[in-house]
């Protein structure tokens, strides 16, 4: 279906990737910890390595829970598929994409 309108109804997406320049929006869910009510959303450079994304962004967010141990995340998924980062892999290469989702468990 499409919008019924009296005129040509065509507007750009408000959060299209180009509005974020060289960055992406990336969502992260800590799957087995209900302390976090929802996944987190980050803005991060496409070229950032996954390792840096994890240590600089995910770790400081996950540390909202004082029991978080940065060495414990496992069973990573990217957009529903199993994921393991190779050395130096960038966010762009990880396949997460703009507004995609990483999931981990501990």
């Amino acid at each position, binding site marked *: 279906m*499409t*919008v019924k309108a009296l005129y040509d109804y065509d507007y750009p*997406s408000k959060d299209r990737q180009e509005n974020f320049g060289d960055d992406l929006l990336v969502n992260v869910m800590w799957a087995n910890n209900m302390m976090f009510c*929802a*996944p*987190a*959303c980050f803005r991060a450079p496409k070229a950032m390595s996954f390792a840096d994304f994890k240590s600089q962004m995910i770790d400081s967010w996950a540390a*909202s829970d004082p029991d978080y141990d940065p060495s414990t995340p496992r069973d990573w998924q990217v957009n529903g598929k199993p994921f393991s980062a190779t050395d130096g892999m960038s966010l762009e290469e990880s396949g997460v994409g703009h*507004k995609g989702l990483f999931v981990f468990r501990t």
Partner: protein
Amino acid sequence: MARAKLSMRERYRLLTRDLDWEPTYVEPEKVYPYTRYEGIKIHDWDAWEDPFRLTVDSYAKYQAEKDKKLYAVVEGFAQGQGHLSLSDARYVNSLKLFLCGVTPLEYAAHRHFGFLARYLDGPGARFAALCQSIDELRHTQTEIHTISQYNKYYGGLHNFSQMHDRVWYLSVPKSFFEDGISAGPFEFLTAISFSFEYFLTNLLFVPFMSGASFNGDLATMTFGFSAQSDESRHMTLGLEVIKFMLEQDEGNVPIIQDWIDKWFWRGYRLLSLVASMMDYMLPKKIMSWKESFELYLEQQMLEGLFPDLEYYGIRPPRHVQQAITEKDYMSHQVAWILYQFSFAANFNATVPPKEEMDWMSQAYPDTFDRHYRPLWERARSLQEQGKRFFFQGLPMLCQTCQIPMGFTEPGDPTTLCVRTSEYRGERFNFCSDGCKWIFDREPEKYVQAWLPVHQIYQGNCGGTSIPEVLEWYGIQDGVDNGEYLTSPDKANWDKWHAPSVVGGGVS
């Protein structure tokens, strides 16, 4: 010589319908350009039964008297420091939610019913829209007057209109209503008059007004009584409008069914804020969200209204089963969201006191002790160690309802639900099958959603740091937001209720 007085009915006929005429110099389609493109066919506008049957002069006279009585009560309550006899200062959080979340919707309704009062083809329908437009403006004013007295003593109430436009969780009601007013007139009537003002109205109105009554807020309770006669007219209009459209043409039925499906889920997701208010912000409970849902939705609507609508070929809303499944946990999930994001809200949240948790165990025997009590108890323990738990970051939001993605898979309250759609090569995320279904019907519309988190990241909300965003919201950090137990509202309340010392004065 005295003139015979006309009956009300006769005056109504002469002053509304009798003043209408058929345009002959201009095509009706040009005078009323918005009532055809949605596909709804109306063959006879005169079949419209007006539930108002009022004239402007009688409306003005009667409503002015009613509003004057309300203002007398509000004034007396304010003069007598009525706020001191509330159940607790924590109750005022529900008023913060009401003034910032609901009052601006009344104003938006006023504007859009004003538009319909010009653009519906039938004079009866136009006049009904006119009366409702004035009602909605009166409600905006009376709500502001009723609640403004609290602004002198409590945080979070000082710029409700700006907050409605900017604060993250208020984008939920705002985008809901803007979805309605940017639709055509018949969809708007189905969305607001039928779904919101008839189908879901008790779930919205009763928690706030009974909540006021149970918690010593005579002013807001009196507003509720005062508005009740208007609201019952709006309900009548909501049912009349849906029956009118269904009776006019068989081809209207599938279109209306589709709108009922959409607006049930839109309204239901919006009401999740009310559900958490009801269970968590009212120190004196009325009933649980679950009981309220069973009474007003399952019994009154699904068992009462929908069997009647079946006659027209209308079935209960799509996804209603999911709402029934969620009644055991939705209010807790949303309260948990509000608790950990209260640093960016104009209200205070806290762990429920022990007696309230026991009440919840009774009200939610299958879920509370198993899933939510452990979370609240851990939060309390962290707080006691000086580590009040906040989500230190921004949440992933649903593209449709705009609520943080804190809802779970149907029947599994421990697994967060994530649905996605791809549109023109871009990914969109949803909290539920209902919100995804709504997006997939009209992706061109929802790709334009103003999602607070993504707007912050684009730099459109005053900056990208929390202090900058709070300033842009108009939230005074440490005054309006965050934890209740350490809030100025709580400190003031304790001071006002400290035992008085002989010879000491109240400062």
